[in-house]
């Protein structure tokens, strides 16, 4: 793997991190409202997986999806404008943080129902299967979703029909305040996949290269007809569940221990040690990213409010596709 590719991975993670740090500020400033779920600490997962997809593949994500949207190449300005509720937002301001969409990149959202995106992903893959298109659908979900019936039904359907789905479980150990061991009787999640005869690997989600490596192998297998695969990415969210969460359910120490495995810091140190990155490079990267984000904020600020008269548009489609 080339150095430039490594730098790109780092840049992607950094963009997400800085973007979300800015989101948190903007939430305090009441520019962003509603629920805001930060991905900080988990960036390696979205970057490693989504970077390994082809442009024509599909992505289905959750309400914690800023990282996925950016990794998929969505314009940070359009994403930020969405969170501002502006018409220039990627969902016209109607979705907000939890409902980012981009049809042109086959980014199917942004789903605020835990587990709700999984059946959808199965259907996208079914369509590819029926049309013999060698495309992959990557669906992201938290470990909390594993307790939902929709997860199991979807796993079975995908495996039974040998559909090209990549199930990406982001195991950050908590579902809101519920720790995995209070949510699953068997916490080795790959065993769930095994019970559907689906190949499943445990991956260090704090190591972007490990994620990328696993994702590439899995995606290749999925694409070439190997059926669905399941990746359990072990990671951690450094911040609260949402902006309303007082984090009563875990200790500061637990968070601190995980922060020592910050995917961005780890990877930065590694690149510096390996000589692929200098402190100067990093500074440049940071300032590039900062610039991009400020541009996104400026874009959102300059955005306009959708006229109220348009409220009833798009409840039903305006154009009948042929």
């Amino acid at each position, binding site marked *: 793997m080339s150095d430039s590719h490594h730098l790109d991975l780092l840049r992607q993670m950094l963009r997400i991190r800085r973007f979300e740090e800015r989101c948190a500020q903007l939430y305090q400033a009441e520019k962003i409202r509603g629920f805001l779920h930060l991905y900080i600490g988990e960036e390696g997962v979205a970057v490693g997986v989504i970077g390994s997809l082809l442009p024509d593949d599909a992505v289905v994500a959750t309400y914690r999806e800023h990282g996925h949207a950016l990794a998929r190449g969505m314009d940070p300005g359009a994403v930020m404008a969405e969170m501002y509720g502006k018409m220039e937002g990627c969902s016209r301001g109607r979705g907000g943080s939890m409902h980012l969409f981009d049809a042109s990149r086959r980014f199917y959202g942004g789903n605020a129902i835990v587990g709700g995106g999984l059946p959808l992903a199965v259907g996208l893959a079914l*369509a590819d299967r029926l049309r013999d298109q060698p495309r992959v659908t990557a669906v992201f979900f938290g470990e909390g979703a594993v307790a939902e019936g929709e997860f199991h039904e*979807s796993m079975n359907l995908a495996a039974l029909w040998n559909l090209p789905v990549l199930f990406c479980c982001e195991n950050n150990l908590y579902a809101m305040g519920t720790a995995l061991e209070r949510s699953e009787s068997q916490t080795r999640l790959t065993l769930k996949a095994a019970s559907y005869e689906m190949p499943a690997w445990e991956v260090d989600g704090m190591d972007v290269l490990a994620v990328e490596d696993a994702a590439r192998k899995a995606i290749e297998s999925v694409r070439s007809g190997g059926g669905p695969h399941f990746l359990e990415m072990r990671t951690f969210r450094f911040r609260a569940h949402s902006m309303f969460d007082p984090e009563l359910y875990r200790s500061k120490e637990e968070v601190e221990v995980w922060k020592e495995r910050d995917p961005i810091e780890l990877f930065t140190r590694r690149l510096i040690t390996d000589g692929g990155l200098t402190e100067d490079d990093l500074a440049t990267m940071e300032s590039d990213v900062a610039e991009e984000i400020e541009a996104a904020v400026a874009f959102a600020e300059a955005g306009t409010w959708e006229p109220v008269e348009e409220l009833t548009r*798009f409840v039903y489609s305006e154009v009948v596709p042929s």
Partner: protein
Amino acid sequence: MTSLATPTRTITYREAMRESMSDAMRNDPRVFLMGEDVGRYGGCYAVSKGMLEEFGPDRVRDTPLSEAAFVGAGIGAALAGLRPIVEVMTVNFSLLALDQIVNTAALYSHMSGGQFNVPIVIRMTTGAGRQLGAQHSHSLEVWYAHVPGLKVVTPATVEDARWMLPTALEDPDPVIIFEHAALYNSEGDLPEQGAPVDLDRAVVRRPGPDVGLITYGGSLPKTLAAATELAEEGISAQVLDLRSLRPLDTEAILTTAASTHRIVIVDEGWKTAGISAEIAASIAEGAIWELDAPIRRVCSVEVPIPYARHMEDAALPQTAGIVAAARELVGR
């Protein structure tokens, strides 16, 4: 020596539905059928019998018992450009798929600012009357009719069974088709040369100035029978078949109210907060001064539907009850 009358043929509602699906699948490779036992079993109500043989297991796709996942998969396939017909065996089991239908199918277009649309058709059997007991006798059309983003139709004639589906498949948005189980064996004459019909207009099935009977779906035959009985007593009832519950054809409802001044609404759903309430409300909003009598609703009694025949009969709207309500309104 050609006949001037349109040539017709007699066909059952079940056959009409099957022909409709098969035809759509022959004409459009994007169309496929998916649901529990639609294939090898031939469909729980034998609607899809024989279709597996013609179209193969990819396009007549048996699913596991996973209502949420296979309805959701239909939504995904529709998003990706296919035209799935998803059969949920009965409305009773659709409760397990409601999250997908309401939180995904109905919302995706608006929530994404119009980027996506979900051209799925979901068919389900509805209604009671066959002694299947409380868990298998729901009529929950009204729940679906409440939800923006969905369209809800209730074919009650063989013509609608035959010709609503192609329109539904052309529709870019989710369409739910409710088929009342009691209709499958009903027969009717179908013109040899049919064409797709609209999904949003009510139709007067029988004209009459004395009292308006507004109904849909499985209650249409009972309501027509009531009109026949009323005619024998010299009461000429108008029968309006709603055909679509979302959108509701409010204009037609108001026209019936304005032309008959007396309204009986017949609905197999429970009365409280049923679709009958919406019909009454539209009239109370839009044609209240036209009424010469309070609105009457003939609905299911507010009980879980019991198994025993006589109790089930007593729980559901029946012709006699419709006749009595109409008679009362016209003061006989």
